[in-house]
């Protein structure tokens, strides 16, 4: 028995366990309660749901709203848009499902008190672009959290979930999860009939541009630690499109968003010499991806590609031309409030560098890659589609159930459904919540049981880093260098370096190939061997250890998927230099992976892309 084996174990029983209290988790909680009046619905969150998840800081726009009440868009239109942006590969059944429900979520937000801007002439929501509406969203998350708190039976804040638990009586069925309290160190065993993974995607698996203090100013939140993927992967759920990482063109250093600038303020980009550059690269892009370059709007990755090539040609920095638009006081106000509402750090950068966009056209930059499932990208778990129309091979159970029985997901967790954003993630949570209620009611007396040996073993594993530190710390005088343990920040920096240099990060201009991926995998394997030697000084560092563990699981999946897809599908996101062109003959398909928890082996396969919308 280790030094920390005496930590108290707390058991929490529920019908539905929601892991992660961000937008998709709050949606799942609300809907679970609406349909399951008599069910026990428990939310577990590593931070505080009042300000957790990707929207903790607020948002200035809702990027997924159809406007069906005014006949602005139909769900089919959104599927076409997302499909086009992702170079043809999305789960159209899942995307349509979100699009047909999403307006009702937005109408609920407005009723709850979210200030949505209105067009003074029409009285409709103020459009920023075809899909975006503008909001005063500083309290977007606290408002949604209030609804979730009122729906949940219990909310457990400051508990980091580390592993899922499997059913003792039946293989491939989930029975709960374990984690620890970051505040008092208690071990938590959550026993549940259904589990909804609504955790976050992955920042910090690729080395960020800023590696000092500024490493925290990643585009996606530093607390998005890939639990969305690590939890399902470890129990053998199939994952899809994990190679489809995203790179963002954003304002330099603060990663302030450009959407409102392009769409509402009508600003545009130019190279360092004041010239448009996208047309320069048209022919070479056409050579790589064929007709996809002619699609409108031009896919996000291809616009990145033109940016990158222009900078490589020596005509950077690329700038956003703001001086004209910012002469209009309304536009100036929108430009600043846009940052203050969702990326305050960009306002800090501009104030510190005396950048007033009225006088200076600010620089843009292409970010390091991120892995997530709700923006212009769609990594995540392979999920069952809606019962009323999903193709038969996309349907094996309840809507949004993964390939593990009783295990549901939403938001960043579910793959193939790009352009969900906040409203779509909340909506997908609602879809998963309702499906989970049906699943629980259908279970009847056939309830899953947790395995005592399994959670006791996990308890030892979870606290081992504290023991490693306690023992190893006595070997050295002081400082951070130990022959016996690695600190989580040290492991994280090694991970980021491997992914950056071998799997398509910024230092290679997002380029990789089979030999680089093979070497990257060898180094990842050695990192994995070192992970049992991580050391945690306290509970906060123990959280960092488990965040790192989750990031490594996601990174391995990303690397294996990138190796499997022998083409360059999304130039501007990443390049397989040994297969530099898009290849619709062999690769107009989804990539699927499954980690076998019994053998430790990974299996890759292709799955067809069904185009159910013309």
């Amino acid at each position, binding site marked *: 028995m280790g030094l920390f084996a005496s930590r108290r174990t707390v058991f929490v029983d529920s019908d539905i366990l929601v892991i992660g209290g961000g937008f998709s988790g709050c949606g799942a909680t609300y*809907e679970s*309660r*609406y*349909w399951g*009046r008599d069910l026990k619905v428990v939310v577990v969150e*590593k*931070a*505080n749901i*009042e*300000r*957790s*998840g990707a929207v*903790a*800081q607020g948002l200035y726009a809702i990027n997924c709203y159809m406007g*069906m009440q005014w006949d602005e868009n139909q769900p089919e239109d959104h599927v076409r848009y997302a499909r086009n942006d992702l170079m043809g590969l999305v789960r159209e059944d899942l995307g349509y499902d979100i699009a*047909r*429900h999403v*307006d009702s979520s937005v*109408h*609920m937000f407005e009723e*709850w*008190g979210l*200030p949505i801007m209105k067009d003074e002439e029409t009285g409709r929501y103020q459009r920023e672009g075809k899909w975006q509406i503008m909001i*005063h969203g*500083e*309290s977007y998350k606290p*408002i949604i959290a*209030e609804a979730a708190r*009122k729906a949940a039976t219990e909310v457990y804040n400051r508990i980091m979930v580390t592993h899922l638990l499997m059913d003792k009586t039946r293989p491939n069925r989930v029975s709960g999860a374990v984690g620890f309290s970051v505040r008092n160190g208690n071990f938590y065993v959550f026993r549940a009939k259904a589990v909804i993974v609504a955790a976050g995607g992955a920042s910090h698996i690729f080395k960020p541009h*800023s*590696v*000092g*203090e*500024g490493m*925290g*100013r990643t585009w996606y*939140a*530093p*607390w998005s630690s890939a639990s969305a993927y690590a939890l399902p992967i470890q129990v053998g759920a199939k994952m899809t499109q994990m190679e489809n990482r995203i790179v963002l063109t954003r304002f330099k*250093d603060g990663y302030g968003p450009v959407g409102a600038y392009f769409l509402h303020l009508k600003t545009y980009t130019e190279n360092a010499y004041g010239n448009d550059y996208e047309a320069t690269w048209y022919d070479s892009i056409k050579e790589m991806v064929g007709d996809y370059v002619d699609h409108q709007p031009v896919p996000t990755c291809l616009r990145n590609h033109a940016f990158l090539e222009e900078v490589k040609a020596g005509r950077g920095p690329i700038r956003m031309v703001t001086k004209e638009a910012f002469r209009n006081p309304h536009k100036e106000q929108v430009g600043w*409030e846009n940052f*203050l509402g969702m990326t305050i*750090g960009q306002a*800090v*950068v501009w*104030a*510190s*560098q*005396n950048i*007033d966009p009225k006088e200076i056209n600010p620089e843009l930059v292409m970010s390091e890659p991120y892995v997530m499932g709700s923006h212009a990208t769609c990594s995540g778990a392979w999920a069952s589609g809606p019962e*009323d*129309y999903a193709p038969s091979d996309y349907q094996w159970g309840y809507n949004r159930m993964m390939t593990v029985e009783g295990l549901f997901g939403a938001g960043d967790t579910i793959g193939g459904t790009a352009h969900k954003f906040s409203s779509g993630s909340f909506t997908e949570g609602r*879809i998963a919540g*309702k499906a989970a*209620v049906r699943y629980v*009611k259908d279970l009847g007396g056939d309830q899953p049981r947790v395995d005592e040996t399994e959670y006791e073993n996990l308890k030892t594993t979870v606290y081992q880093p504290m023991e490693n530190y306690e023992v190893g710390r006595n070997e050295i005088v002081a400082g951070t260098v130990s022959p016996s343990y690695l600190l989580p*920040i040290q492991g994280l920096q090694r991970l980021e370096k491997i992914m950056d240099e071998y799997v398509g990060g910024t230092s290679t201009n997002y380029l990789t190939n089979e030999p680089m991926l093979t070497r990257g995998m060898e180094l990842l394997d050695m990192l994995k061997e070192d992970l049992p030697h991580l050391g945690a000084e306290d509970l*906060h560092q123990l*959280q960092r250890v488990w965040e790192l563990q989750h990031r490594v699981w996601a990174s391995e999946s990303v690397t294996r998927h990138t190796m499997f897809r022998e083409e360059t599908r999304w130039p501007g996101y990443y390049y397989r230099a040994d297969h530099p062109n898009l290849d619709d003959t062999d690769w107009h398909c989804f990539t699927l992976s499954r980690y076998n928890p019994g053998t430790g082996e990974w299996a890759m396969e292709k799955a067809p892309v069904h185009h159910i*919308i013309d």
Partner: protein
Amino acid sequence: MPTFVYMTRCDGCGECVDICPSDIMHIDKTYRRAYNLEPNFCWECYSCVKACPQHAIDVRGYADFAPLGHSVRVLREEEKRIISWKLKFRDGREKNFVSPIRTTPWGSIKPPSDYEAPGPDALKAQELSHEPGSLHIDALPALSPQ
């Protein structure tokens, strides 16, 4: 760095510790006041700055790229349901912005269980809570199975 706490203003209440999404605001054991123990995991999300009753927390932009001399201050008045920002540039220029944050009283959201319970058939249908009414169209759109 990026957030930091003024010694003379902090009373150690722990609101920032409770709210920080990154778990980096902790109470210093010697001074019994809050501090940012891991600035390189700070997103500058300002959750702690907004939550601090003493206005003891401020932000100094990331040293990697933010020259000194700037400030971005915020006052979030929950009861008035507004947020006010004051930006000060390194060269002294100022900008001020005020925005609404909510249109309804805090705590006013009706719990889902206060609505009439749906029947068992509705659970099998595709409509989510409050639909189709909340869609503001007649019926939930659907595709035909192929």
